[in-house]
């Protein structure tokens, strides 16, 4: 990307770089011109990288002590918690790390939605991101099964049973997934294998995600194309590195608070009861980060259509670059879109809330309305808005508004929409 070719100073460096241009890569990563007006919502990419590495490192350590067997899994987790040196710390980081990972990814996704980062020329980055998000959900779901508690077992039963909704071959697929006629030891061992594999797939996709990002460069809060490098950009190191580092530290404080002071608050008490196929828990609830989709699933009366709705709710995001017909990226210059954006945020939060509640009465009604709105937002509002909306004129470069005190007016506007 950088315009002038990088030449190593030392002779050995040059010899090596001619054969494997690692130094060119390092130079590209440090020099990488980044818009200087990126706000803190942009720091979650770095935070997510941290989350992934934390999960892999703690996960590897846990795998050294965990036993993937239906009779021993629960006990081995207690062994980790009690007898392995700092096992409690590693496990609590891993368990809460999953929640922190999803918290960060949701902020990352909603940042992209607000500033239109999915639009041309960044569609591939966005689609790779959606695949990463899908894999994250698969990894998190299978990871939650591994302690072999009651929620693990019944969560696995409910989710795998969704495949039985597929006509004709559904039953066969479910038995194939289970490796038997119910969730049992073969299910646990294959989930463990896949839970181990998926993070490395994610890691590979993250490399592609960043590679694809480095072709057009970062979007920015103004959403206009930036000339690179120019006075509108700063080199990634040290400017963005230190800013991401600062944000990461703030994030780690929240993270540490959960790990050390309320490590079980995001989990479900029933998962400290060993799995028992004979006893069904009163409420089977997934982890909080899957609740919006769980609400969509349950809001459709037909099982097959429920599964279709749930999957479409995620896959529809992949079509977003073409569903959103507006050429303007940032919501800052789209007064109407901005309002619909916040309604969507509220809609997803409501879906998450009703997902945790029993699917009956008023909750079910709210879930249905919210589900319908979710699809209306993407399938109707966004395509129409692009043609109808009167947008605010864009500035010519980001330097002008930055110097003219533009961020302040932007902030005031956003505050209004928050209230």
């Amino acid at each position, binding site marked *: 990307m950088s315009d002038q070719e990088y030449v190593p100073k030392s002779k050995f460096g040059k010899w090596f770089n001619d054969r494997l241009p690692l130094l060119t890569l390092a130079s590209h990563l440090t020099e990488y011109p980044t818009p*200087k007006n990126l706000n*803190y919502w942009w720091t979650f990419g770095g935070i997510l990288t941290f989350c992934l590495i934390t999960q892999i490192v703690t996960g590897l350590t846990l795998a050294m002590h965990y036993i993937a067997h239906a009779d021993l899994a629960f006990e081995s987790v207690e062994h980790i918690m009690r007898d392995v040196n700092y096992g409690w710390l590693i496990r609590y980081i891993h368990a809460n790390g999953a929640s922190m990972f999803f*918290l960060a990814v949701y902020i990352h996704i909603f940042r992209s939605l607000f500033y239109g980062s999915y639009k041309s020329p960044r569609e591939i980055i966005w689609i790779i991101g959606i695949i990463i998000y899908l894999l994250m959900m698969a990894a998190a779901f299978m990871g939650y099964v591994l302690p072999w508690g009651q929620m693990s077992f019944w969560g696995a039963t409910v989710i795998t049973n969704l495949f039985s909704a597929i006509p004709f071959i559904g039953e066969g697929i479910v038995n194939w997934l289970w490796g038997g006629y119910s969730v049992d030891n073969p299910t646990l061992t294959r989930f463990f294998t896949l839970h181990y594999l998926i993070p490395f797939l994610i890691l590979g996709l993250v490399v592609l995600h960043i590679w694809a990002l480095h072709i057009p460069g970062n979007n920015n809060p103004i959403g206009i194309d930036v000339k690179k490098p120019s006075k509108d950009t700063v080199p990634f190191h040290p400017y963005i590195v230190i800013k991401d580092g*600062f944000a990461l530290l703030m994030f780690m404080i*929240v993270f540490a608070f959960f790990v*050390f*002071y309320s490590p079980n608050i995001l989990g479900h008490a029933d998962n400290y009861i060993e799995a028992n196929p004979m006893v069904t828990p009163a409420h089977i609830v997934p982890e909080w980060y899957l609740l919006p989709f769980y609400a969509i699933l349950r809001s459709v009366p037909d099982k097959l259509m429920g599964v279709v709705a749930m999957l479409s709710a995620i896959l529809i995001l992949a079509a977003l670059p073409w569903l959103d017909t507006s050429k303007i990226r940032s919501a800052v210059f789209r007064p109407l879109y901005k309002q619909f954006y916040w309604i969507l945020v509220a809609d997803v939060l409501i879906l998450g809330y009703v997902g945790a509640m029993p699917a009956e009465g008023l909750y079910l009604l709210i879930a249905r309305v919210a589900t319908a709105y979710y699809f209306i937002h993407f399938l109707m509002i966004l395509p129409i808005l692009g043609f109808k909306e009167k947008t605010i004129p864009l500035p010519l470069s980001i330097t002008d508004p930055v110097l003219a005190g533009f961020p302040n007016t932007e902030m005031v506007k956003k505050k209004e929409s928050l209230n």
Partner: protein
Amino acid sequence: MKNFFRIFYLIILLLTGSLQANAAEKVELLKIDWSFKGLFGKFDRGSLQRGYQVYTEVCSSCHSMKYVSYRNLAEKGGPEFTEEQVKAIAANFEVTDGPNNDGEMFVRPAKLSDKFVMPFENVKAAQAANGGAYPPDMSVLAKARTGGVNYIYSVLLGYQDPPSGVTMEDGVYYNKYMYGNKIKMSKPLSDDLIEYNDGTVASEEQMAKDVVTFLMWAAEPHLEARHKMGFKAILYLIILTILVYFSMKRIWSRIESKV
């Protein structure tokens, strides 16, 4: 910076929202000030030792605690009995070991490294002796119930006569806080049921508090270490964050742009 606080605020809002969503409670549980809550929460050593006494003399006749070892009773952050005391405690129990060189199983007194001896051989035996209900293992019980320690404390003190019109079958008892108000465990605690070794008056509330404290320790034996490390870790992070903040300001002051 302002931006940052907004992110922070939103995170807190999101999390508390999802928590409230999970905690759908109907009956208000009894609550007391547990010494192990809070940033510097520690177990009350005396309470843990008394709680162990309640557990052995009352609960352990039906409830196992299969993930806790006798040695744990002497470890730091626990009841902290002396090693001699724990050896004497363990010696009261018998475990089946073997096979020995003759291929025979044999019975020997428990050692520090043994797990707590279970009152029943297996789940079926436990059910047979308890009218079909399995007394749950108590190792992680304090974490395995919504409401946690407050819930267990409330159930222990929640036995009442059934309201008029509600008839209970034989061997089923009415409990205000139990899910469905029906419990198959008879009222386990009553004033002066046991005599505390340290002379504390064994009131029902005192025993409930002590045994729940003990259960919390059994479920989270490293709780004190966790709180201690947490304080240090967060303090360290805060100091580092401040330093990085000023470095960031310094670096960004080279260009005319705000962070």
